[in-house]
């Protein structure tokens, strides 16, 4: 376990979704997360496992600051933290190139940096002449390749990844899988939510198991996964 101070600290975090009240029949509450506490240390890779609807995505969104916890607190170091979402802000009438720039800015880069990054994205997405065509003309596979390439070139120090391993056809799937594994293995801090336990086992130092919005277990990868699979 690293000895540095944590980059993200969750303390008794709870997130509640309220359905809007109606004149007849009041609002209902649903706690997607409750009493979640753990620390994230620099450079480590944490796996997040749990059934569908257990609260994994809500947890990542709360850490990213997209939603605010209704209870508890999340302390973040002054770091660049971003959720590795695919196709952020894509507009169908813009070209691949323009979408890559807009997406880069939305993911936290200034305009210059976003424009600089485009060459790398173009090379990785490997869309040929289509890169300068409107997104509306893309097949869904091509769109996925562009979306993945944009996300992959994020420069954030802390990456929150929600089940975005391998997209597109066989070739691209292999390539994108390898690229994201490299990204995760690099010095960055990563939280990886996934149902692919083999990947979690391969990449993660620790695993947090979320069950019904609560932390069921948080410990070394092998230990938690063995319990999770029973």
């Amino acid at each position, binding site marked *: 376990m690293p000895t540095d101070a944590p980059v993200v600290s969750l303390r008794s975090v709870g*997130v509640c*979704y*309220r*359905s*809007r009240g109606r004149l007849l029949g009041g609002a209902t509450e649903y706690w997607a997360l409750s009493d979640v506490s753990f620390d994230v240390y620099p450079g480590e890779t944490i796996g997040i496992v749990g059934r569908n609807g257990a609260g994994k995505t809500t947890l990542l*969104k709360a850490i*990213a*600051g*997209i*939603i*605010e916890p209704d209870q508890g607190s999340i302390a973040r170091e002054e770091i660049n933290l*971003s*959720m590795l*979402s695919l196709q*952020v*802000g894509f*507009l*169908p*009438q*813009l070209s691949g190139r*323009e979408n890559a*720039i*807009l997406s880069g*800015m*939305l*993911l*936290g*880069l*200034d*305009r210059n940096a976003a424009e600089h990054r485009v060459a790398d994205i173009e090379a990785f997405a490997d869309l040929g002449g289509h890169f300068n065509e*409107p997104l509306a003309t893309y097949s869904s596979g091509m769109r996925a390749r562009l979306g993945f390439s944009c996300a992959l070139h994020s420069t954030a120090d802390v990456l929150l990844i929600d089940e975005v391993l391998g997209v597109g056809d066989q070739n691209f799937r292999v390539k994108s899988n390898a690229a994201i594994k490299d990204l995760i293995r690099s010095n960055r801090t990563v939280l990886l939510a996934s149902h692919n336990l083999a990947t979690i086992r391969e990449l993660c130092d620790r695993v947090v198991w979320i069950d019904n919005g609560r932390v069921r277990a948080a410990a070394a990868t092998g230990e938690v996964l063995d319990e999770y699979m029973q």
Partner: protein
Amino acid sequence: MKQRIRDIIQYKTYAELKAESQRYYLGFLWWLIEPVIYMLVFYFVFGILFQRGTEDFVVFLLTGLVFWHWFQSTVMQGVDTLQANRVLYNQVFVPKYLFPAVVMLKNSAKFGVVLAVLLLFLLVYGINPSAPWFTALPVLAVGGAFIAGTTALVAAITPFVPDLRVLIENGMRALLFMSGIFYDINSFQTPYRIVFELNPVALLIDNLRSVLLRNQFPDWGELAAVFLLATVLGLAGLALMRANESRYAKIAY
């Protein structure tokens, strides 16, 4: 405002304008055609059918409609803008004022094109630009501030109170008929004048006509009052968005 957010607003405005112009066969020509069709309808009804046509009715009507169209389309898009962008702010954190700002800039750019055509039309029509013409600039600036403030406020509130959308739609209809677009508010006597004196849209349209058509300077007191109101509305909208920054993403539409 951070440089990055300013860049995003600028780029997104450009992108949406481009997107709109590429969606249709006639492209950005629609920015002109659509307001022209809109104005023709009003001209046909009020100028021809109702024979309200005084001598200068065409320019009188066009000036009012051009401003109204800018106001109405911006505010109504502001009502829906957060809901329309919910996928985006569920993926990354962005300050929510970004969305009404893009709506404002996009519609103002389109308004600029229509305004240029209107001014050209006024010149061709035989109106001589004199000193008051240039005070159209402060009138339009206050008009823009009022539209921006209103748009920010409705954008901030409607996601939480969707029923408001229905009220705003009906409020718009009321304003359309009560803002002196196809009649002169100065032809009314008290006590009815109060309807217009308390209506920023009517005051703005009347002032715009003063400077462009009547060769008069604007009523600076009225402009100052509208600007003050615009500032209050805008600041309230911004404060609301800021206070609820991380709640919009949780709303189930």
